[in-house]
């Protein structure tokens, strides 16, 4: 049964607020998107470099183990014992020849196959499992895994497109840009935001808010809408990238553009400017790039801080943002230090990211009582979706909803895609 959604317009320029509050919608998202034909971001290959390495992750609200077997192949399967449903792996990561459930010690290979269970043949001829018990038939549900230049994606569906088609040239190209050299994991950060996961997905597709909500960007000139940049999308408009090029506007242009806003372009200066130092390390010269992959992944570069993020829905009213911060394996000590100083900009305490948590939480609070009211998504235009060489837009939000509606089976008549 498809839910009834009264879309006021077929181009998603109006989005009902109740979609962030409805339990049934949430359950259906877990089934039709996260356990459906979308490819979810799992983790980075560099996090499981050796045979036997494993780590736990989430696909929507399904716990998943990602592991590397003896031969080096990568597997992903549901972290739930086939027997009575206990979590098989409880640690965040590790290395083991076999994974053993704590409850009745059922054993799994790193490929996710059930390989043994205690007292299978009973004790002294008594008890045990029936003769015809088929271990292979009850192994945990597996995901298809795809490795795109070191970024691992998984899907539960046999019907999923090949990853190259799913990400498009847009997606595979930009991942290659970030992961062109071997990386080194610098660590993790986590943030729990009391808002629906789609509000975070929208936030990442909303270039319009960046220089307004995050006043730090404009005040200190890290990123302003007057810089050269724009938004790019894949052909299906489900993924997107906000990007900007360093030092492509002037103080005068910025001052004129932000004259009517609260931004304080001239009044404040950092005492320690190394926070904003940008060492150009990409041939394209971008100092800000945030490609986002439907439904739950993104890579983000702000100056020299680099990270991958995963959105982990936690019920209709909350989600975790799990961030993996990385540098390159050939970074020297000074470069690693510089990346960590730059990391002050991003994450839960980031100068240009902390506001997102607050903005999402106040939207969630205020829209609970919104009834049939809708968000307005018209900045950058209505109708057809296309790439834009400017940044005063929120069109990729409409792209997100268009693919969301397709997977959920709730597109309006004549829907744009």
């Amino acid at each position: 049964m498809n839910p009834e959604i009264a879309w006021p317009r077929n181009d998603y320029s109006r989005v009902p607020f109740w979609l962030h509050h409805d339990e049934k919608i949430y359950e259906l998202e877990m089934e039709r998107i996260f356990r459906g034909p979308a490819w979810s971001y799992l983790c980075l290959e560099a996090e499981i470099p050796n045979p036997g390495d494993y780590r736990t992750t989430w696909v929507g609200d399904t716990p998943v183990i990602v592991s590397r077997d003896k031969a080096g192949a990568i597997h992903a399967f549901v972290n739930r014992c086939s027997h009575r449903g206990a979590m098989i792996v409880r640690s965040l990561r590790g290395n083991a020849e076999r994974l053993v459930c704590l409850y009745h010690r059922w054993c799994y290979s790193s490929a996710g196959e059930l390989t043994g269970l205690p007292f299978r043949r009973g004790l002294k001829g008594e008890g045990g499992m029936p003769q015809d018990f088929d271990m292979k038939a009850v192994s945990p549900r597996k995901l298809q895994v795809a490795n795109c230049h070191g970024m691992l994606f998984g899907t539960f569906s046999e019907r999923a497109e090949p990853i190259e088609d799913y990400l498009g040239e847009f997606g595979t190209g930009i991942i290659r840009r970030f992961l062109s050299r071997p990386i080194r994991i610098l660590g993790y950060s986590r943030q729990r935001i009391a808002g629906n996961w789609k509000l975070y997905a929208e936030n990442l597709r909303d270039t319009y808010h960046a220089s307004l909500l995050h006043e730090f960007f404009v005040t200190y000139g890290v990123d302003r809408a007057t810089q050269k940049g724009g938004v790019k999308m894949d052909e299906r408009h489900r993924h997107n990238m906000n990007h900007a090029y360093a030092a492509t506007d002037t103080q005068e242009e910025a001052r004129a553009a932000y004259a009517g806003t609260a931004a304080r372009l001239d009044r404040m200066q950092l005492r320690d400017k190394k926070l904003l130092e940008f060492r150009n390390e990409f041939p394209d010269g971008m100092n800000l790039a945030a490609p986002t992959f439907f439904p739950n992944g993104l890579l983000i570069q702000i100056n020299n801080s680099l990270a991958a993020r995963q959105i982990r829905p936690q019920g209709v009213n909350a989600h975790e943002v799990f961030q993996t911060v990385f540098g390159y394996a050939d970074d020297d000590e000074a470069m690693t230090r510089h990346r960590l100083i730059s990391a002050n900009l991003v994450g839960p305490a980031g100068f240009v990211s902390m506001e997102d948590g607050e903005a999402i939480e106040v939207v969630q609070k205020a829209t609970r009582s919104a009834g049939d009211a809708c968000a307005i998504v018209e900045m950058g235009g209505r109708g057809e979706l296309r790439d834009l060489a400017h940044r005063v837009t929120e069109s990729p939000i409409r792209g997100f909803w268009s693919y969301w509606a397709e997977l959920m089976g709730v597109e309006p008549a004549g829907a744009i895609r």
Partner: protein
Amino acid sequence: MAIDEDRLEDWVELFEEECDYRVVTRENVEQGLPNVLMWCDNKNMLRDRVESYRNVNLYNLHYDRHVLGPLRFITTDDSICCFELAYSLFQTSLEGESRLFSVGRYRVEARIEGNLAKLKSVTVIADTGLVPSLLATPI
């Protein structure tokens, strides 16, 4: 105390010019990973942080309340005192709702000169790696 009373500028003055303040998580420390949630490697960076909070950043309006102890001395000599101190940090919204925001420990190096102590380095090792909402005011 200074943080709980919203005297962030006074809090900065507790540090030496050459100082180090960082917030890290136990999850990263135990894996030997260097990632930071917040890192100021001198007093000017601390001043910049506070100035940005005051004038630029937007965050959840709240009161902080640190509950400290127990304290454990690690090393002391004539001029440098090194100790660890557990903390619980509660946040209270303007509408009066309180929550446990962060729990963990400080690792502190303080320089003692006569009756005065100045902070040389403060590392906050937060057990609470899952930051509720966001981390704006320092711990």
